[in-house]
């Protein structure tokens, strides 16, 4: 029996995404309008499904431009989805605040999950206290004209947390201590440029955590830092996760890093998840031709490697996210397709769903399972 991936929520589910799409319209020139050329879109996120359980560090990996950041921003509603469901398990605090404002969010299942995709923009503000993003660039994401104190106080003021200045001072001091910028007084009056890259990233983390959220999208949080100091920031993030009961959606292009800190991983290619499962199983037993190529390409600090050329089982280059190839979107680059005539007609015509290959490990490739059987399941 083949099994296809379905993001079915249970008691432990904190976030699940079903067939999420985020398309960006391309700017149309006047000639496009005159010639009635239909509008075109960047299919940044193009039908993504996954499920994140409470306490997970869920990795989202793939090459530049595959849609990782857009997926992260969309689940936080920093970008509006084009279609799809974003099921989220809210805290009571959040429901209460919405109720006070006379808003009742759409509950979509028996576990009290609500569909974030349906929240109108004017009711998004309270959500920021639950869900936050840590941005990639510690240089660009802090306002250079504000002191560290002001940067951390700002969200408190916006969300009316801490009624007096003293209370807010206390919260800011604690937040700095939590990210080990101690003594906090020494950092409060500095400007971002007076901090090292690692210290700046701690401030970015402190700012994301100061409202006591429970779900964090961490977008390449260490990729701008020297390798020599990355582990320190990662360990801090993991310690805070345990202490504050956080769940991470951890975006990275670095599979070796993902191996150390994520428990589940999704590999994205051109707006879609091509492989999904427990990190160890996916990395030790990759099944999608794309995952295999990615893994083959990663260098390791072994001097014997210089005697060999790396074999890269992939061809061509990533196509643009505007003209997605029909059928399997990886096909133009796939060497398995070339070598496996019996599946070619499926690869050319139908996008493969995520098919289970071992427990909880799913792969979107026609090499797995009986295509006709899968197509029947898809029609249901």
């Amino acid at each position, binding site marked *: 029996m083949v099994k296809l991936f379905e993001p079915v929520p249970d008691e432990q589910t904190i976030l699940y995404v079903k067939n999420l799409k985020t398309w960006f319209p391309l700017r149309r020139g006047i000639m496009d309008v005159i010639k009635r050329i239909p509008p075109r879109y960047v299919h940044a996120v193009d039908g993504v499904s996954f499920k994140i359980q409470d306490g997970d560090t869920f990795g989202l990996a793939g090459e530049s431009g595959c849609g990782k950041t857009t997926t992260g921003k969309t689940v936080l509603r920093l970008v509006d989805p084009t279609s799809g469901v974003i099921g989220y398990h809210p805290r009571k605090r959040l429901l209460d605040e919405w109720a006070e404002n006379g808003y009742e969010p759409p509950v979509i299942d028996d576990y009290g999950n609500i569909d974030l995709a349906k929240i109108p923009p004017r009711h998004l503000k309270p959500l920021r206290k639950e869900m936050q993003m840590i941005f990639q660039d510690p240089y660009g994401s802090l306002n250079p004209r504000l002191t560290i104190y002001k940067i951390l106080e700002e969200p408190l003021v916006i969300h009316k947390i801490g009624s007096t200045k003293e209370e807010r001072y206390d919260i800011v001091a604690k937040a700095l201590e939590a990210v080990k910028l101690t003594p906090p007084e020494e950092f409060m009056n500095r400007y971002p440029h007076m901090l090292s890259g690692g210290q700046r990233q701690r401030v970015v983390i402190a700012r994301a955590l100061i409202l006591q959220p429970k779900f964090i999208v961490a977008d390449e949080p260490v990729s701008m830092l020297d390798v020599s100091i990355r582990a320190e920031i990662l360990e801090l993030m993991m310690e805070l996760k345990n202490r504050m009961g956080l769940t991470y959606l951890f975006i990275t292009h670095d599979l070796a890093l993902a191996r150390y800190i994520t428990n589940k991983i999704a590999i994205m290619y051109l707006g879609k998840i091509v492989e999904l499962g427990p990190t160890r199983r996916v990395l030790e037993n990759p099944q999608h031709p794309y995952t295999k190529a990615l893994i083959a390409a990663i260098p390791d600090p072994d*001097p014997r490697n210089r005697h060999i050329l790396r074999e890269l089982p992939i061809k061509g280059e990533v196509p643009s996210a505007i003209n997605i190839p029909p059928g399997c979107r990886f096909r133009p680059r796939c060497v398995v397709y070339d070598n496996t005539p019996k599946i070619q007609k499926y690869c050319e015509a139908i996008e493969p769903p995520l098919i289970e290959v071992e427990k909880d490990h799913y792969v979107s490739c026609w090499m797995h399972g009986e295509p006709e059987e899968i197509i029947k399941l898809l029609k249901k």
Partner: protein
Amino acid sequence: METLLEVKDLKTYFYTTKGVVKAVDGVSFSLGKGEVMGLAGESGCGKSTTAYSLIRLVPPPGKIVGGKIIFEGKNILELSDEDFRKKYRWKKISMIFQGAMNALNPVYTIGDQLAEVFMLHEGLTKTEAMSKVYELLEMVGIDPKRARSYPHELSGGMKQRVMIAMALALNPPLVIADEPTTALDVVVQAQIMNLLKKLQREKNVSIILITHDLSLIAEIADKVAIMYAGKVVEYGTAEQIYLNPQHPYTQALLRSIPRLRGEISKLEWIPGTPPDLIAPPPGCRFAPRCKFRMDICTKEEPPTIEVEPGHIVSCWLHAKK
């Protein structure tokens, strides 16, 4: 092996209004003909400045203030600017600059930009130059028809191939590649590394590969120099550095790298930050971050010790033995 390059006690300082930045402060290493050396270290340790010194393009307010760069037996620091520009830069020593693939001129085709190298340095006509350009593109794995493309029509990987073509155009015996793959995805990075390896073998060119990524250096380098705060702290063959590192800095760097294969051991990090190069700490510059720090480390500069043939370490831990 015939020695191609010998750098001796090189010093390059930046004379800024805030003080003298000792970016390269007594760097020595040597490179054989056809050998590949990796130069690694954290951001700001002086890797690029070392490279710029080798092709004598240190930007102001920087200046080479000491040492020798002996290339094919001649100290190139003694040459006049004119002589160096005419006879050495690009012809004998070329460089792939950090981030340079975005510096290709957007208004000229890549064919024109490559042809210019031949017209300028070898006095070829446009037609002669173009036939060389086609060969060159073929060599770096780009369809020669692409000569008519503008930079924006090429992917990052293709632009980097053009940069490699440019550096190899005049068949220099030494190419310096400064972070040639930093902005690229892993698959493209691996393709570029394969290309560099292949060309290195075919042409027996010497390469200095500069990157903060020790995994990447392992892909190609016969020798490795580890730089910290303007100095080379450890230097040896790839086997010596990766399998038997002796400097605490090298050891910590290697243990900070997450690995995709093999066992997962706890990642280490190096606490603190590299020192200010205007006022570096006395003694060993790494001492403030070193977990093996002894009294003497913060007082006196460590001696340079050859711990085994060709394996050099600057560290007090080895001086006592």
